[in-house]
Every structure is written in structure tokens, then in C-alpha cells.
């Protein structure tokens, strides 16, 4: 087991490294571009040279790459081009906010999607199954910003149920109130992520229901209910763990549009601002951090999967 964890850890490190390389090269595809992009057309040669010197863009590409990676490993996220201050000052608070939003969303998404998948599977072929499956997947292809705006329009503006911004400016700053404000944005994310997770969960439950071991359980004399709770769920939920991990990238990507619509000073808003202003330092570091989060979740999911699945945990010994 230890060997397995170490191996996966090693692979994760490789992945993060590759991400760094990819991100770096995407940003620096056109040499000399960064400076010109940022300063715009009216920049003089001196301005460009000065800019390049300050941000170390006059070094060779490889030197820049390794310099950047070295800095990252020390926790230095670089200097923002817009604000001429450390990127960490801008990103870290934003990440804090986004984590709250992502957290609330996660706690909504996981139980509701799994429940949806299980209900669909247990009522296979009936109307509720079709509704959950088709409805879920249809909702999933409608972009988050559309959902966000629709929710704001209907629930927020027309019916005044939920607040239309995600951030309680004045008044009640308690945790509970913060969560209340985050519910509507979380629902936007839920609508998009529900479909696929429910679908995979449903498939896992159906496979377990139709398996030989389920048949054995019933033929042993277990009532269907008992057989399902004792034998089916633990096998059915294995693929669900994997699919939830695979949806984390979409959760993070979705933050951008949702935060903009709900006026939330989170990671997504900062990233959008950096894109508009061509602040590549912020962009690079931002993307790497989000990828790090994704890779960590993937690692946890893989380990959880192995722990719960004896086939991986214990190799054939006979």
C-alpha cells in the first residue's frame, strides 16, 4: 500500500511539473510578446526594455522557466505586472473567498448528485429516472453564466428569495450569513455539475444491481433492501469517487463566470482581470495553483479508491 501511495505521489509531481511547463510555454509562445502585450502599442523601446528587465523577461526562455519554478518552490509567486506588488497579495485572499464558494458548492453537489444517481438507478426506466438522467445532462451543457443570470433574474430580482450578490457587504458578516449569500452561486454550479456525476453514479449502481454477487445475496435469502444496502452501495460508489475528482477542474473553471455575475472577489474574478490586463505573472501563478488543487484532489481520490477497493489494495497472493 505504501508503495502505491508513493508511486501515485511521484506521478502527481510529474504532472504538476508538466503543467508548469505547459502554462509557461503557452504564455511565452511569442517571444517579446509579453512586454508588448502588456504595455500596448504606444510603448517605446525604452519602456519595453525597462519592463523586460524588471520582470526578468530578458533572460532565455529556459532560464525564465527554471527561475519561475524555483521561485514557486520557495513560495514566491512572482510580481504582478498590474500592481507591481507580490502576486501572493492579490491571489491568496481571492483564493480564500473562492474556497468558501467552492466549499459550499461541493457540499451541495456531492450529496445531491449521488442521491440523484441512486434514485435514478433504483427506479430504472420509470419517469423519475428519465427526468434525472436527461434533465441532469441537459442542464449540464448550459453554461454556468447562463444559469447564474437566469437564477439572478428569477429567484433574485423577480422573486427576491436570495440575495443577488455573493458578498454580504455591510451588516451581518457571520459565517451563516456568508453561506446564505453563497447559495445562489452554488446552485449555478450545482446545475452544471449534477448531471454527469449522477449519471456515473447511476451506472455504477445499476451494474452492482445486475451483478452476480447481488444475485447471490438475494438467493441467500436477503430481502432486496438489505441486499442493496449491504452489498450494492459499497461497490457502486467506487466509480463515483473517480468521477467526482474528474469534475473538480470544471468546478474551478466554472468559478470564473459565476463570480463575475455574482460580483464576488474570488479567484475567478482576479483571473479574468489578469486576462484583460495581460498580467501574465498573475495568470501563470493562478493557473498553477488551480492545477495543484486539482492534482491534489485527484491524488486523494485515487488513494481513497485504492483503500476501498481490495483488488488494488491486495494483489493476488495465491
Amino acid at each position, binding site marked *: 500500500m505504501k508503495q502505491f501511495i508513493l508511486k501515485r505521489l511521484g506521478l502527481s509531481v510529474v504532472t504538476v511539473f508538466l503543467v508548469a511547463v505547459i502554462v509557461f510555454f503557452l504564455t511565452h509562445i511569442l517571444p517579446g510578446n509579453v512586454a508588448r502585450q502588456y504595455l500596448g502599442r504606444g510603448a517605446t523601446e525604452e519602456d519595453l526594455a525597462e519592463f523586460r528587465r524588471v520582470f526578468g523577461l530578458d533572460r532565455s526562455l529556459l532560464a525564465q522557466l527554471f527561475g519561475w519554478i524555483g521561485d514557486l518552490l520557495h513560495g514566491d509567486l512572482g510580481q504582478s505586472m498590474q500592481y507591481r506588488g507580490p502576486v501572493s497579495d492579490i491571489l491568496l485572499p481571492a483564493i480564500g473567498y473562492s474556497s468558501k464558494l467552492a466549499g459550499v458548492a461541493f457540499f451541495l453537489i456531492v450529496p445531491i448528485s449521488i442521491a440523484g444517481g441512486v434514485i435514478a438507478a433504483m427506479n430504472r426506466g420509470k419517469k423519475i429516472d428519465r427526468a434525472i438522467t436527461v434533465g441532469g445532462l441537459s442542464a449540464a451543457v448550459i453554461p454556468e453564466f447562463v444559469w447564474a443570470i437566469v437564477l439572478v433574474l428569477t429567484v433574485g430580482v423577480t422573486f427576491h428569495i436570495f440575495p443577488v450578490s455573493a458578498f454580504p457587504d455591510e451588516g451581518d458578516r457571520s459565517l451563516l450569513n456568508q453561506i446564505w449569500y453563497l447559495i445562489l452561486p452554488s446552485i449555478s454550479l450545482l446545475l452544471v455539475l449534477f448531471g454527469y456525476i449522477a449519471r456515473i453514479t447511476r451506472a455504477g449502481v445499476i451494474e452492482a444491481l445486475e*451483478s*452476480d*454477487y447481488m*444475485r*447471490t*445475496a*438475494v*438467493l*441467500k*435469502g*436477503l*430481502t432486496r433492501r438489505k441486499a442493496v444496502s*449491504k*452489498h450494492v452501495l*459499497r*461497490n457502486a460508489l467506487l466509480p463515483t469517487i473517480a468521477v467526482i475528482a474528474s469534475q473538480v477542474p470544471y468546478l474551478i473553471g466554472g468559478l470564473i463566470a459565476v463570480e463575475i455575475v455574482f460580483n464576488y472577489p474570488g479567484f475567478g474574478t482576479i483571473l479574468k482581470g489578469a486576462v484583460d490586463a495581460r498580467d501574465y505573472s498573475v495568470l501563470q501563478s493562478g493557473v498553477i495553483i488551480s492545477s495543484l488543487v486539482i492534482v491534489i484532489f485527484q491524488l486523494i481520490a485515487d488513494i481513497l479508491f485504492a483503500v*476501498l*477497493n*481490495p*483488488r488494488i489494495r*491486495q*494483489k*493476488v*497472493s*495465491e
Partner: protein
Amino acid sequence: MSTANTPTLELRNLEVAYTVRGIDREVLRDISLSIAPGEAYGLVGESGCGKSTAAFAAMRYLPRNGKITGGAILFEGKNIVDMADDEVSSLRRSAISMVYQNPATALNPTIRVGDQVAEVFQLSGISKSDSLEMAQAALVQVQIADPAQVMRRYAHQLSGGMAQRVVIAMALASNPRLLVMDEPTTGLDATVEAEVLDLVRELRRDTGTAVLFISHNLGVIRHMCDRVGVLYAGALVEQGATADLFNNPSHPYTVGLLRCIPRGGLHKSTDRLDTIPGTPPALGTHFDGCVFASRCSLADDNCRTQLPQMVTISGAHVARCFHSDKAISMPRSIEQTEFVSQSEIHATHSGDTLLSINHLSKIFTQDGHKVQVINDVSLNLGFGETLGLVGESGSGKTTIAKLVLGLVSPEEGGVVTLDGKGLAKTLNRRDVHDVGSMQIVFQNPDQALNRRHSVTRIVGRAVERLRGFNVSDAIDRAHELLSGMRVEASLHSARPVQLSGGLKQRVAISRAFAGSPQIVVCDEPTSALDVSVQAAILNLLVDLQKQDGVSFIFISHDLGVVRYISDRIAVLYLGRVIEFGTSQRVFNGPFHPYTEALLSSVPNIDGSIRKRIPLTGVVPSPSNPPSGCVLNPRCPRKAGSGYETLCETEEPNLTEVEPGHFMRCHIPVAKLKQLQS
């Protein structure tokens, strides 16, 4: 209310149907049978006859689209058809249990095996800790050595035989009055199967449970059951005491079935197998008259329009046929092949060596370990000869075939020589003529034929590549080959999925013959086919050999088939040849101890009781072979032979113990003869 005379299970005019695409299709037609307490009843039939449905019906377990459309299922006198669900669950907990094929998947992969067995006890109200103790005792009862360790294992860590024992333990834990077994040993190696069957017989003796035993294997049924019922297309066509039915089969189907099995003593050189023309009908086909009429050589118009009733042959022996008295002497049905050979070379060299395999070895790397799958194998094959390769799983027989064909390359020192010419180690380096000279027919035609290609294309392309024909000539030749193998012209443009198993194999054989091969490797070519279809394919292969002079390397786990079709046989164990000789010699003795054990584990159709020579222990893993002779930890003849130390320390060589008969054993042949008489 049940008395001593009430049958444990009775099916009375049972009719079951499946709803497929909106239409109800009859799966079981008016079945009546009864099983007395403690009796073993065998239900035998080919694929699609409905035997599994009957088994599950006894458990009142039908798939979602199945329903009982008529008749009754009486357990100890009480009809369970309309019983409430929890009553049925209660019956399953305490009175009826089931064991079926694929034991590994029958167990939950994420729960420890011991807990699953204990669950049965817990269901009858026993505490958890007591249940675990009783579970362990149950494992002892099924002869599992070291039950404490097995309890803690998971399903994927058990071998097939071990898993089946666990499932049997689980089934017997509730002390059932009826045990339903649906193909419980299919897929297990012969020696393992024999052990499991022995176990079942012993347990029956000890517990007095009635058994409903379902199988397609007539030998096993004969061996295990007191009474037998033959099922065809969902109808019970004959029923009676085992000896009666086998000695005096009175339904044309039963007669045909018995005739197409290659029994001991038959050989291709002197006898030809009977076949049952046509194919078994699809599940749910409707019949006005007798279900078997379309394939029966005794059938007349009456048979086709009127449903025959059960006719008493003698005592409890009944058959559903108008012509039951003529059944046993019904005319033989033997098909002929019209194969058009295009090769001139083959016939002339009989007697000489065509293929020579020398010192082949192969090491695979699995999870970082090196596994020696084949260890220094040397064999030869003559012109127009069939070499049978026999061995259980792990023996390496398929790997040898792959080595010979070049699909896998041998280790240093291994040489394959075809007609005097050494062949390149890998397929890519061999020239077209050599590649076309050695072809293969695989076991599973669903995977061996590209499902997106038409039959013509499959064979035609092979002709194109191997004979260098242009496309239209290749297609003509393809049509010729296919028709010669009795694949009718109307099917030539079909895709494999539209053909039956037997037809698919014929297409595969046509493809193998596309390049005018000198050698065709047959890797379990009939294992996936019904017995009646198997006979036709075997006859086809024999005909091809007679007309074309082609040689075969015939790999099979079915000893009866190998004995029938092979001229010489090599027995493999753990990647080594341990015996090699003519078919006669290998099957009549004196035997290598492994061969002896192997042969004794196959139940005979003619009912003769062969002394069982058991192999103790489990097959060792090829990554960790025993020292000395690889068989020694399990060898039934080691103890008392006087050669124990030698067996444990030194690996014996393959030596010629009689002219043309080779054995790998320290014990001299004379001593073996003495021990085996």
C-alpha cells in the same frame, strides 16, 4: 404438509416465458419432473434449451422480463409460484440454496469471504461472533486447508476451485433440503472439477440433501445423478433413471447427442462422428408439433403437426416421441465436406517431419516478476499428422502455439523449423509463403472474426495477402472455400454476428485455409460450441486432413476430443512436456503420474468407474515453481516409489521410455506399470 413420500421439488406442467421486444416467447414448455428427498436429478441440454431458467425457477428467481405462464412449482408439496416475497426469502434462507457458474463473480469483491459465509448464519438469527466460528467450520467441511486464512481473503485472491468450494460452503450453511447447481464446474480445470464433484457427492452422503444438477456435460451428469432429464428447446424430451437412459436412449435427440460425443476408444482413423444436422432453435421459437422435428431423421408429418405425449419406455423411463421404439437404431447422419484443395505438395511426404520445435522457452514479465511460462519444450510434427496438446490452465499450451506462429518470440536458443527451413523468430521477418503455411483457428470466433467485415471480405482478404491474388480472384476463391466448408452462398455477404457459433467457426477455418497451409493450429476450436455442433466441426477437420494432407496442432482441455482426433499427444504441465507419444500409448498406459491423474478425473460417458487418482494441493504458480520435478509436491506416485529424494531435488529429463513414447519422470516405466496395474 410433507411426508416422506412428498417430493422435495416438483415441477408440474411448468411454463415460463420471457418478454422480448414486446412479445412473449416460450422458454419452458410444459415441464414436469420431481425430485425425491435426497435424490440427485440431472437436467442436461445444450445452450438455449432453458436449463438455467428451470434452475432459477426452482428458486423462484426470474429476470425482470420473465414470468410463469402456467403450471406449478411445488417445494415439499407447497406451491411457491404465488408465494409472497418474504416467504420466498425465508425459503431461500433455510431450505433451498443455489450454486452456479463463475464462482469468483458470485462473491462480493469488496467484502471478505469469511464475512460472506457468516452472513448466511446471521440471517437465521445467530450472533456475529458465533457466525464467524460456524463459517470457519463450514470451510473445513468443504475441505479447505487453512480456513482461518481463507476467511480473511477477498474473492479475487481465490483460485477457481477454492472459490467454488466457498460458494458451496455458503450454500450448504443453511442446511438446505434442496441444492440447485447450475453448471458448477464448467470452466474449472479437469482435476479441480473432479475434486469439486467428489466433494459434492460426499456432502450429499453426509447431509442427505436433494440436488438438482444442471450441466451440458453428459459424462458429469452420468457420474453424479440418480435420475436424468433431457431438455431440448425448453421441452423435457426424455426422463429416467441414469442407467436406463444412457443404456437405452429412446428419444432421437438423446440418441443423437450420445452418438456425437467422441467416447473412449473411437479414433478418427476408424470412426466418424455422428452429427445432428441443423442448429438448436432460438430461445422462444414457437412450434406446432414436436420441438425436435426439424432436425430429426425419424420425423414424419405427424411429428411436425402434433405434439407428442410422454410415452413410457419402462418403469419411470419416459420419452416424448412418436417413434421412441426406433430411436436407438435410427440411421446415422454423417455430413461430407466438399473441400477443393489447391495444393500439390502435401500428400507426398507422409511420415517425414514437417515441423520441428527445439528448446523453446518463454519468459514473461508480470508486475516486475519474471515468469517462465515455457521451459525448454521440444516437439515434432509429421506431414498430415495431428499433434494434440493437452494440459490444464497454466500449462502454457496456448503460448507454445503463439511461439510456433511467431506471434510471440522465443528466448535465446529456441528454434522452429518448418520443412527443414529455420523460421525467423518474429512474424514480421517471415516471408509470406511461410506465414501462409502456418495458420490458426481460435477458440472464440466472436473475437477472432472482425465483426465489421463481411464473411467474404474476411476470407477474401486472407487469400489476397497470402496467395497474392488480385481482389476479384481472391473473392472467387473465398466463395469456393466457404462453400466447401458448407457455408451456403446466401450467407457470404453476412457479418459474423448474423451467424451461429458453428458457422462462425467454419468461416474461421476457411480463413485459415486461405493460404493453403501445411499446418493449422486449432486452439480449443470447439470448446465454445455445443456438442452437436462440435461433432460437425471435428468431422470437417478430419476430412480436410484426409483430402489435403494438412497437419494440425490441436489444443484442447477436452481429453475425449483430443484422444479422438490426435495421432500423437503431448501432455504439458507448468510449461514443460511431461509425456509425449502416440494417442494409443498416452491413453492406455503406462502413464506418467500426472497423465494418470488427469485421465482419472474425467467422468466417462459409458459409466465405467475409473479409479480416481487425486492430485493433492494446488497448481503452483509459474513464477515460483517447486524445486526438482515440478510435479513432486502433488505427485500421486511419489510416495512409496523409492525415488522421493530424487524427485524433490532433481528435475527429470524427457526420456524415451518405449519406442516413440517419451516421459519426464524419475520412476522407471516398469515400476510405473507395476504401480498402476
